[in-house]
């Protein structure tokens, strides 16, 4: 018996290898006593920058890696870059985050890197096995990060809720995968696509049931209505930088992986799943936009608005075209920037206002804190899709793709959804610019005990972990918001380069993956 060593393309795998190395370095560095939190965060950022550099270096490549488990192509690279952008933003927002103190900075950043590793695997996977591994590697560190602020019971509650709903989604997805595997006899997307064509399986019960369960499982992860109930709760309870990360990175990567599974693996059945996805998109747009109206918690509001935005993005998948995939990836990129521009000021206000994430926390900051008010305003305007911001171009592309793909009615729904969304987005803007700043509430409550820790540890830790408030201390947070807002405006005026990248990425998805 001979053992054939598989050919391993180390250049193609280099982004993943760089992340693994960063993970090891960060964990080791964090246990060295004199290494402070800034050094740990800096190491993490250097790791992300290296990974991004290696991903850009591999731009334009189009080949399968590791015995057809992963595929490196432009749409995967684009998703990885969005995820890295979000992760780097999260690191900057987390420097003074109470959750990072409670969990320990090393553990906190290591979990973040682990989640990004899962995203890299998921964005490149062309095999049911690597898809499942990537999705779980992405999700499990996020469950922990959501519950990381163990002093707040909301955080624990959101972690547990996310774990239960996320695992429910994974189990459904797995069962769907099992059925698809049973019907087609392979876990490789390329072989599945070939089997579906050659063996006339398009009306096979096993395949259809499998596809339905897989779509439901992924809809849970993407918080598409009617599988969305967890999203507002988890967004509200999780530490705010982690909410930003979930809203941006998870969405981008899971959407790309979803597109890969559907178009490269199950493309033969597109007539069946595209109508189902159209229904999911409509329900998400309606429920997301209606649910967000009247929310007082900004994180909760963004949770609902994320459901609606997920519905818009899904339109790019429904039309099954190069154009649609390009519009999807373009929208994901600009949505990431807009979201970070909104979340950065929110993090800053949460620490200094004493209102938490309530709308009162941002009331009147237009006059007192213009460096926070402007990024937030620009981010919100981009989410609405106002001309001059990148969100406008993104929505334009999605609507154009929908009309070209004979889904004009869906484009109409997107426009109506946008109009309804003004109801809550403009409320944020009026709070920022038109309301007076309320007096800060008295929040000098004693620090709650550390859940899961010994009482002595609580006593010794009490007070020491107080985060110094004050505007001068959050330069990095303000900077993150300003940079993302500037990029949003810049891409709204000069979108050509990003359009070209998104088009290249869109073309990559329609290429057959090969066996």
């Amino acid at each position, binding site marked *: 018996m001979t053992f054939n060593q598989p050919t391993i393309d180390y250049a193609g795998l280099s982004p993943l290898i760089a992340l693994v190395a960063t993970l090891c370095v960060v964990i080791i560095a964090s246990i060295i006593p004199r290494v402070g939190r800034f050094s740990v965060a800096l190491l993490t950022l250097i790791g992300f920058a290296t990974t991004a550099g290696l991903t850009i270096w591999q731009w334009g490549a189009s080949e399968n890696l590791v015995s057809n488990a992963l595929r490196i192509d432009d749409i995967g690279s684009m998703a990885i870059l969005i995820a890295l952008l979000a992760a780097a933003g999260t690191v900057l927002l987390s420097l003074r985050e109470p959750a990072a103190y409670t969990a320990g900075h090393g553990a906190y950043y290591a979990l973040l890197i682990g989640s990004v590793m899962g995203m890299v695997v998921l964005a490149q996977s062309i095999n049911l096995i690597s898809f*499942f591994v990537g999705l779980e590697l992405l999700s*499990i560190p996020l469950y922990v990060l959501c519950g990381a602020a163990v002093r707040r*019971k909301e955080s*624990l509650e959101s*972690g*547990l809720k996310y774990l*239960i709903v996320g695992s429910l989604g*994974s189990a459904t997805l797995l069962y769907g995968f099992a059925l698809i595997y049973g019907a087609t006899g392979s876990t490789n997307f390329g072989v599945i696509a070939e089997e579906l064509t050659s063996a006339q399986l398009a009306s096979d019960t096993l395949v259809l049931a499998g596809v339905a369960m897989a779509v439901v499982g992924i809809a849970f992860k993407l918080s598409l209505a009617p599988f969305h109930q967890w999203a507002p709760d988890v967004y509200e*309870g999780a530490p705010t930088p982690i909410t930003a990360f979930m809203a941006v990175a998870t969405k981008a990567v899971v959407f790309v992986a979803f597109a890969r599974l559907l178009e490269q693996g199950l493309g033969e059945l597109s007539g069946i799943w595209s109508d189902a996805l159209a229904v999911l998109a409509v329900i998400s747009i309606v429920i997301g936009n209606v649910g967000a109206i009247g929310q007082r918690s900004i994180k*909760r509001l963004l949770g609902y608005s994320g459901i609606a935005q997920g519905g818009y993005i899904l339109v790019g998948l429904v039309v099954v075209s190069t154009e649609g995939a390009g519009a999807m990836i373009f929208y994901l990129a600009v949505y990431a920037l807009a979201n970070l521009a909104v979340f950065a000021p929110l993090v800053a206000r949460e620490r200094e206002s004493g209102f938490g994430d309530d709308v009162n926390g941002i009331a009147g900051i237009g006059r007192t804190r213009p460096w926070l008010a402007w990024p937030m305003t620009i981010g919100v305007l981009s989410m609405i899709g106002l001309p001059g911001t990148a969100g406008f171009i993104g929505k334009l592309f999605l609507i154009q793709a929908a009309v070209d793909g004979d889904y004009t009615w869906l484009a109409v729904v997107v426009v109506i959804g946008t109009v309804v969304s003004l109801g809550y987005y403009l409320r944020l803007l009026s709070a920022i610019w038109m309301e007076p700043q309320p007096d800060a509430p008295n929040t000098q409550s004693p620090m709650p005990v550390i859940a899961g820790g010994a009482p002595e540890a609580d006593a010794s830790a009490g007070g020491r972990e107080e985060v110094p408030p004050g505007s001068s201390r959050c330069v990095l947070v303000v900077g993150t918001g300003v940079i993302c807002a500037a990029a949003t405006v810049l891409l709204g005026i000069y979108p050509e380069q990003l359009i070209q990248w998104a088009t290249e990425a869109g073309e990559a998805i329609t290429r057959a993956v090969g066996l």
Partner: protein
Amino acid sequence: MDLSYFLVLSALLFATGAIGVLVRRSPLVILLCLELMLNAGNLALLTFSRSLADQQGQVLALVVMVVAACEVVVGLGLIVAAYRRKLPLNVDEFRTLRG
């Protein structure tokens, strides 16, 4: 032996788990039911793997076992943390976040 028996069993296990997640109130029992759902998936994978005489399904089943263990570790950790904060261990009481 007819493999459809195994598939029916796995479908029943999956349904039992799903119903358990929906109706039970204790987070511990919910975790158990989630395990049941994942293992129902495993049984289906192994059945198909056997009938197709192909190894890929078994590889996925092995991966799922690892994933299930990770999920339980995180879940139990969160439950212990909630218990030490003296939060009620009943998912109906988890409603600080709602609306």
